[in-house]
């Protein structure tokens, strides 16, 4: 009994003292836990971005490190932007990003709508469509390189199915695109926009790049689908029921109600996939490399060649900074919006 009394009487005191201690301890805990990762990020991310920026303005053009600054400071960038190959790379990045985002969003949305209609075994199909996302880009690249090999890939299948003989009856040539080996560039913006005459490269759509975007969209449309399915799950059933009571057809339900409500999801998908595509390297490196006449070359491959092949460190660093800039154009407004919401 005595023990119990003591315990009961002591308890408030015993609680009070540690609570004061715990309060100041927990106030220190958060900064203490954050400091190591903060320091690591400052050094290994921002420090090295700063170093890369410095190198991009330096004279470091051989294996001997030379961090003296270039005169003029922007000279390396001028050199970089004047190179036909880098101009091609920027064009390719733009074309790749546009077609890839279009395909991935369209396919992701279509798959999500189909699964949203309560098809049998939708869970099974959801997993099937999401699986490609689990692969590495290298695996995807190698597999699609085989598929898009003009002499042994899809073209053989088309031929075996007899499609070419059917085309022959109609007096059409066989279906045999060169896919990743096709050097054609379709169209040229310079024909319509005379002020672009200073650009050294054809500003059109490289045929080989289209094959690569198909592979990329195949891999990532499952991700877009998952995002859309999550978004559709958050739209309350009352909305759907109200729409069907008002006699809306499924087509109108999606066009006028669900898809507009999914706009924030679409923006997120565009930004997440957009920065993936601006940085793309491994998929293209494994699938088509630089491609015929640099048709599938991208800044990432350029950086690798100039840095380690040519040992032109300043040029490689400058190209990296341009890539960082492109990605931040997409990411920074998104982050700013997210931070505002908090």
């Amino acid at each position, binding site marked *: 009994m005595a023990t119990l009394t003591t315990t009961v009487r002591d308890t408030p005191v015993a609680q009070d003292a540690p609570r004061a201690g715990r309060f100041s301890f927990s106030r220190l805990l958060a900064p203490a836990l954050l400091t190591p990762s903060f320091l690591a990020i400052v050094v290994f991310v921002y420090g090295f971005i700063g170093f890369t920026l410095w190198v991009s303005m330096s004279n470091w*053009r*051989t*294996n*001997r*490190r030379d961090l003296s600054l270039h005169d003029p400071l922007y000279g390396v960038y001028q050199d970089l932007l004047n190179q*036909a*190959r880098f101009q091609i790379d920027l064009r390719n990045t733009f074309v790749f990003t546009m077609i890839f985002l279009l395909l991935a969003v369209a396919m992701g949305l279509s798959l999500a709508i189909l699964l949203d209609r309560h098809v049998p075994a939708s869970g099974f199909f959801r997993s099937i469509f999401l699986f490609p996302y689990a692969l590495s880009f290298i695996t995807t690249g190698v597999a699609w*390189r085989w598929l898009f*090999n*003009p*002499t042994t890939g899809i073209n053989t299948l088309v031929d075996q199915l007899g499609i070419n003989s059917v085309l022959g009856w109609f007096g059409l040539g066989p279906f045999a695109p*060169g896919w*990743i*080996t096709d*050097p054609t560039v379709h169209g040229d913006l310079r024909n319509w926009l005379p002020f672009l005459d200073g650009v050294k490269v054809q500003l059109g759509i490289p045929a*080989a790049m289209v094959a690569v975007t198909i592979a990329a969209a195949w891999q990532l449309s499952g991700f877009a689908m998952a995002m859309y399915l999550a978004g559709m799950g958050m739209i309350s059933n009352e909305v759907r029921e109200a729409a069907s009571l008002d006699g809306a057809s499924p087509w109108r339900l999606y066009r006028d109600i669900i898809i507009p409500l999914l706009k924030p999801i679409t923006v997120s998908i565009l930004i997440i996939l957009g920065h993936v595509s601006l940085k793309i390297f491994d998929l293209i490196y494994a699938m*088509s*490399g*630089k*491609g*015929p*006449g*640099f*048709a599938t070359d991208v800044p990432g491959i350029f950086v*690798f*060649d*100039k*840095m*380690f*092949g*040519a*040992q*032109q460190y300043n040029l490689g660093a400058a190209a990296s900074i341009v890539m960082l800039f492109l990605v931040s154009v997409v990411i920074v407004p998104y982050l700013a919006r997210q931070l505002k919401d908090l």
Partner: protein
Amino acid sequence: MTSQNRELSDLIAGIGSGRVTRRDALKRGAALGLSVPALSMAMKLGETAAQSGSLEIFSWWTSPGEAPALQSLFDSYAELYPDVEIVNAAIAGGGGGPAQAVLQTRLQGGNPPDSWQTHIGRELFDGYVNAGFTEAINDLYESEGWLEAFPPALVEGVTVDGNQYAVGVGVHRGNGYWYNREVLANAGVEVGETLSFDEFVAAADAVAATGVPAVALGSADGFVAAQYFENELISAVGPENYPKYFSGELAWDDDGARAAAANFAKALEYVNEDHSALPWSDAVAMVIEGRAAFNSMGDWAYGEVVAKGAQDVVGWVSHPGTAGSFVLVVDCFTLPVGAPNAENAANWLKVIGSKSAQEAFNPLKGSIPARLDADLSGFSEYHQWSGASFAADALLHSAAHGQAASPAFKQALYDAALAFLVSKDVDTFAMTLVDAQSSEG
């Protein structure tokens, strides 16, 4: 043995094997109460004790043809120095691109292997010697008699300001032209001892008429287009003028270089359409399997021929118009500044420069010994042919393999040649190379 003694002998063994750095040794020695002079003596003792410790060799030899060849060098070394543990730091990847990226990172970070593979000439000079990564090995060249054993072109290819910096282990011939006898016979074409450019065009026309691509090209590898062009350059301007383009005495937009580019464009009329998706080995396979008549490739292609047992089907000749020239692609090894096991590394160079090691290594690698005194009787028919060419012909450094030009110019040549495959635009090609040459400084 007291614990202090044990620690001391442990320390000496550590120094000898290279497991303990000098700074660590001084620190640990001081803790044992030893003075710096005593420690220095202990370190000397450790270093001259029977060769032990390890030896890390960096290369890009990982393919089924290359790995056994590298192993034969290791075996030659292990025979003399059985207590040294050899660490094989090979990095896979055709032509060494990925390996060079790893090596550069290690060198920039001050963490060199004990010896690394590179090509002689500018790749060695610009990449490593001028950057201060390699030690001169003049004493080895004198003590081993290498100045006489290697042909002058190979000694010049490792010499900067009178100092030698690497030792060649094997020589590939870069200007091979491989053909399928059956495909040519079907087209009614016969190839003799040599092939001129005009003979090539006539043969290619005859083959193309049978519906088979006359020339197999695999341009997915960066060096392939550049290599084809450099051979056309030798063919157009001759072996005496070829080096002058790299030294700046001749301009890349002169008539000779333009003629070479025009001939290259002519040859491109006969290539397979899917060349951008094929690595070089797939193009060789096209010739072996009779899906194309010709392929221009260094003699590592012969390794593919042997691997598929196609020696009877596939014949060879010099790249059209380059008979009398031997395009050198020479693999060599270096002695790094600050090699973790410098003594072991120097012994490694002695071993791989020796006649017996080169005679064991090269048949497996598909190259010929860098030494002129090597016995080629155990080599294949092709390599005896190539060995005779090595002894008699003009020895020229390959630009596509980094020997004739700086790394930056090599990359510019790769890019220009790759673009040329599609554009076939001689003017742009010439101007790109002129620009690249002028930015060399």
